């Protein structure tokens, strides 16, 4: 039986592990939401690694169509080939290319499929995938062949809540909202990223980080990934840990917006 627990590089809260295991057991897609930088995308990688399965990533962009995940029919290539009378032109199957979802279905072994940032796509996008995710099969009209999953892939979907997802789609998912990690959990997460981090540096950096997150005027609060980058920068730069609170070295790594930098500087001085 598949069972997911935290890995060396990825520290998951108990509830998150629970949700992952429920989604695997019920064979339903797991929908992950949360503040940017809380490790939504990392989760799929960790799950794949923990279960020893191959990871397929389908990155969604604003122009992505559901069809691209299933298969594309390369008509242009066929047109070119037909001009020169190449071999195999008469067989449409040669010009059908499976998308990430198709690849996941055709795979001999069970894979982990990450559908990253599903909310980037058009509003109708999730609805177009309902049947395929439910039944784990689709039909290629051009060749009259249906592609059915050999082993139901573990599907993980991330969303930044830029668009609301349709109800019909949500009903089929297991949902988990990644809370912003508590200080204790954060300490563990940081340690998993660095082999040896100086105690004093870690403590001062975390204190400052959580202090900054309480400033309500900030437009974009710094998140885990920014903290990691910040610590990394300070360690490479050889910053004196005692100066972190007062001087905020490399604060640009933590805070990305001009207005926010202004706020932080004002509060610190």
């Amino acid at each position: 039986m598949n069972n997911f627990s935290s890995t060396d590089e990825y520290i998951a809260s108990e509830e998150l592990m629970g949700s992952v295991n429920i989604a695997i057991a019920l064979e339903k897609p797991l929908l992950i939401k949360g503040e940017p930088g809380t490790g939504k995308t990392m989760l799929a990688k960790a799950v794949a690694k923990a279960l020893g399965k191959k990871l397929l990533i389908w990155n969604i962009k604003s122009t992505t169509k559901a069809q691209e995940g299933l298969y594309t029919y390369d008509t242009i290539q066929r047109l070119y080939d037909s001009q020169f009378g190449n071999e195999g032109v008469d067989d449409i199957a040669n010009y059908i290319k499976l998308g990430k979802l198709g690849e996941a279905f055709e795979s001999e072994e069970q894979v982990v499929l990450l559908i990253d940032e599903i909310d980037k796509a058009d509003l109708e996008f999730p609805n177009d995938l309902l049947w395929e995710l439910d039944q784990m099969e689709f039909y290629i009209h051009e060749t009259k062949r249906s592609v059915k999953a050999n082993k139901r892939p573990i599907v993980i979907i991330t969303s930044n809540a830029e668009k609301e997802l349709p109800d019909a789609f949500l009903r089929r998912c297991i949902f988990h909202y990644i809370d912003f990690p508590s200080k204790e959990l954060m300490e563990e997460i940081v340690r998993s990223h660095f082999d040896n981090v100086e105690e004093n540096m870690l403590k001062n950096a975390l204190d400052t980080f959580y202090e900054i997150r309480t400033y309500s005027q900030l437009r974009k609060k710094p998140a885990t990934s920014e903290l990691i980058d910040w610590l990394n920068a300070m360690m490479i730069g050889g910053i004196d840990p005692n100066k972190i609170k007062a001087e905020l070295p490399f604060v640009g790594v933590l805070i990305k917006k001009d207005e926010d930098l202004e706020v932080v500087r004002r509060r610190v001085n």
Partner: protein
Amino acid sequence: MFTTFFYTLKAKGLDVSLSEWITLHDALNKGLNNSSLTGFYYMARSILVKNETDFDKFDLAFEECFKGIKSENTITDTMLEWLDKSDMMELLHEEARSFLNQSEDLQVDKEDVETKFKDRLKDQDSEHNGGNYWIGTMGKTSFGNMGGNVGGIRVGGSTGYQSAFAVMGARKYKDFRNDKMLDNRQFQMAFRKLRQFSSKLDIPKTELDINQTIDATCNNGGYLKIVMDKPRKNAVKLLLLMDSGGTMIPFTKLLNELFQAIHKSNHYKDVKTYYFHNCIYSKLYKTPECENGDWIDTEWMFRNIDSDYKVIIVGDAAMAPEELYSDTGNYRGPNGGLSGEQWLLLLKQHYKKVVWLNPKMAPGNAPWREAETAIKNIFPMYKLTIDGLNEALVKLMSR
């Protein structure tokens, strides 16, 4: 009992479908909750609730249904009330805390604390604060909220959580509720609703549809066959009229966010913004400072900004009745011979779609806010929350 839970969830406004409910039972049959109530809480939540804005509703329903269960961990409502004193936290200085810590129970192991907690939970029958045995606030035993003790169990309060009831007690997801005031990102999300692709409109096919052309050409044996399509562009034009200064000052940040969100959603065909003070009269200001002279004629706006612009008016509609009804009611600038109400009616006449967003709207018809009630009769008014904004945008898009 479970069916009750289903209906309680519905009663709390959670739209749980039958298929999700069956999935939950499926999960129960597979024993995925690890036979614990806490496990059940997280499992049920991940299956039944699909939006963090609904977590709070789920918490309330869960508490209502399961607080009666004879679980040793159960913390009743009243007990949480006793403990809900988190605003007193600030009174507790570092010194006092360290003093309290020295007094007793400093070294405790977890099991010991838990057993004692349960024992005392059984014994306790009244609210208790400040003592050193019972569960309550400000005390120095190992249990309860805000006690200075470092090693004890916390109930409610603002730190992390372990058990389901601790989470519910904290009502951690309260801030995510839909009816709360919203932030910029949520504004932006809402404004994405406001789009109308002109391909749905009745316009000529002027754009070359490359994909269809290629397909058609291929199907045509390689002989070119062109397919044309209607261009897909957002046809929505927006006119934003914002109340500025005076009673709106407390909402400056909120309005700023709204303004930013609209300008970041750069998918509109056009956005025009003007400002007013309290009510709309013969002049509209170009800047939020509302300085006399830096303005346009409201009639110029009627002439130059088409009636198919969708109008969003943002204001608290808090004004004296004469500011609305008198034709000399504008105490900051010219009235133009008409009362505020007449100007609003002209606006309503000219533009097909107008909504009013109010950051501090009173529910129903509030007799003590005469002007607001009168304006509600002219324009559909919505509270400036996620729900309110969504409703308003749906109203703007309706035909």
